[in-house]
């Protein structure tokens, strides 16, 4: 466990009859944004519900700021949850709904807090329409507002980007980053990898109920030592460059693609970086581009969950 751990998950398993939803998951989450990734049915929502104390783990324990949310109800006031389900009271207005959430969280002045929360998610507190008339994106933002109304230290969001248009997604991501910058712990569950990549680089990857990887996904990519890194090199003499890199044993494979492009596979990026300039100089090649092709979250995610 790290010193700044806000959420500590210790050997947590969850069984639903004969189905193992989570199996011996151990991890810590500190302040800042962490993305909880996994395919559908991987156990993300179950883990979030256990973290919030909504459901008990079958084995193991979860602590939020050193306290067990299932036993210590006060700690639940430090948590804001955006559930995946459409859990809104349809006849209420957005303000009424968020204000109600504030009252339930024992906020001193629920009305101003609700108005502030709605402003945060760019909704008009004065809108008198009931939430049942709202679009999916607006309802999603109401859910986020009710999670923030009591200014929680820990914010857990289960698929918060679902139903939002691209512009709203960007704004919501900006909001999450702002919350993280304020020192809060923001845990976002999602499978929209492009958007998650914009949130930050720290991830927890769950697959089939097991924690597959944790940490910075760039560092996880470095740990994928059985998969060569693929890079695209732009050069005026791609054949000469490919031959030179193969001669120098800096790459394990090279393919010339087009008049000025060569694709290479290397198992040691550091050694490749060291060698490529020397080889280019030696072979009188003008190198104008080096682009990593599989250093993104999508590549890491496919590696971790694709073999199951």
């Amino acid at each position, binding site marked *: 466990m*790290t010193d700044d751990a806000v959420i500590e998950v210790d050997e947590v398993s969850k069984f639903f009859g004969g189905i193992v939803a989570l199996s011996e998951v151990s991890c810590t989450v500190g302040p800042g944004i962490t993305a909880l990734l996994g395919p559908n049915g991987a156990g993300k929502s179950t883990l979030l519900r256990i973290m919030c104390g909504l459901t008990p783990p079958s084995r193991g324990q979860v602590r939020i700021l050193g306290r067990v949310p299932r036993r210590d109800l006060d700690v639940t006031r430090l948590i804001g949850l955006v559930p995946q389900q459409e859990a809104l009271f349809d006849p209420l207005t957005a303000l009424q709904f968020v204000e109600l959430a504030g009252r339930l969280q024992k906020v001193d002045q629920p009305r101003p807090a609700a108005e502030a929360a709605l402003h945060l998610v760019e909704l008009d507190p004065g809108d008198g329409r009931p939430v049942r008339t709202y679009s999916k994106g607006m309802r999603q933002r109401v859910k986020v507002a009710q999670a923030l109304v009591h200014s929680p230290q820990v914010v857990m969001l289960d698929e918060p980007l679902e139903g939002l248009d691209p512009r709203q997604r960007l704004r919501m991501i900006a909001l999450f980053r702002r919350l993280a910058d304020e020192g809060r712990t923001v845990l976002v569950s999602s499978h929209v990898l492009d958007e998650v990549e914009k949130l930050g680089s720290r991830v927890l990857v769950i*697959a089939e109920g*097991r*924690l*597959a*990887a*944790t*940490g*910075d*996904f760039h*560092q*996880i990519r*470095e*740990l*994928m*030592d059985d998969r060569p890194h693929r890079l695209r090199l732009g050069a005026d003499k791609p054949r000469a460059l490919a031959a030179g890199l193969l001669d120098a044993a800096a790459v394990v494979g090279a393919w010339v693609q087009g008049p000025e492009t060569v694709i290479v596979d290397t198992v040691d990026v550091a050694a490749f970086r060291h060698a490529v300039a020397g080889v280019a100089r030696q072979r009188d090649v003008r190198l104008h581009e080096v682009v990593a092709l599989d250093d993104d979250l999508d590549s890491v995610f496919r*590696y*971790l*969950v*694709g*073999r*199951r």
Partner: protein
Amino acid sequence: MSLPTGDARILDRGYRRYDGPRAGTAHAVRSVIAHTLRRILGLRRPARAKVLPVMAIAFAYIPAIVFVGIVALSGRFGARAQADLIVPPYGEYYGFIISAIVLFVTFVAPEALCPDRRSRSLSLYLSSPLTRMTYLLGKVLAVAIVVAFVTVGPPLLLLFGRMMQSAGPDGFLAFLAVLGRMLASGTMLAALYTAVSMGVASLTDRRAVAAAATLLLLIGSSIVTGTIVYGLNGPSWVFGSHLTAAPLLLVSRIYGESSGDPQVTTLALAAGALFWTALGSAVCVLRYRSLQVTR
């Protein structure tokens, strides 16, 4: 798990091709033996799976323990002569435990062979370095080991118990002679009953049917041979194929004891034991050679 880069960790990479050393056929056979022994003895299984093996082993060993106790007590009270009247010679010990041996062999081989065919997991075994014959070898060795546990173990316990009470054979050579006879007779019984029970168990994939058929064969052989030899005054060598009395008579002959019908020659007894052992083995091997293995 990989070494951490910063605080990043990969904990589970999912399915991965096995690149480690491959232990080969001998290891696979050993695994079959170990797994079969666990299954037969009910190890790592519910308590009800342990009842029959524990009962059979207890029935086989309790007489030996009692006899050793009698020898010990008689030594303490100076009644060794009376004890010698009660405690049977080594060759006759099997007469006390033949029911335990029969009980044991009727469920051991079916337990070892039938479930793999019934659950169609034989194809999984055969997708490993095992062939049909090496698979069968593992099964035979496992069954023979547990059967030998009740055919060799109790007389050995009796021998060593008596020796500890200074009531064993006189001198080292005499001890070796008794030990050799014990191992020979115990091994003969183990081989015979293993072959017979496995031959029967190879013909069905239902344990209960195999156990009942084995029992029926053991009892049936005694009825048929008894009727031929004593009811119809047939040739005495037929008695050699009696599956319970003839092996016990052969054991007595191995020990040089004169018991049973003197008209039944030792050759007939040995031939009978050999016949059943060969027949059971042949049935088992032929059955597994021709068995269609499907997924």
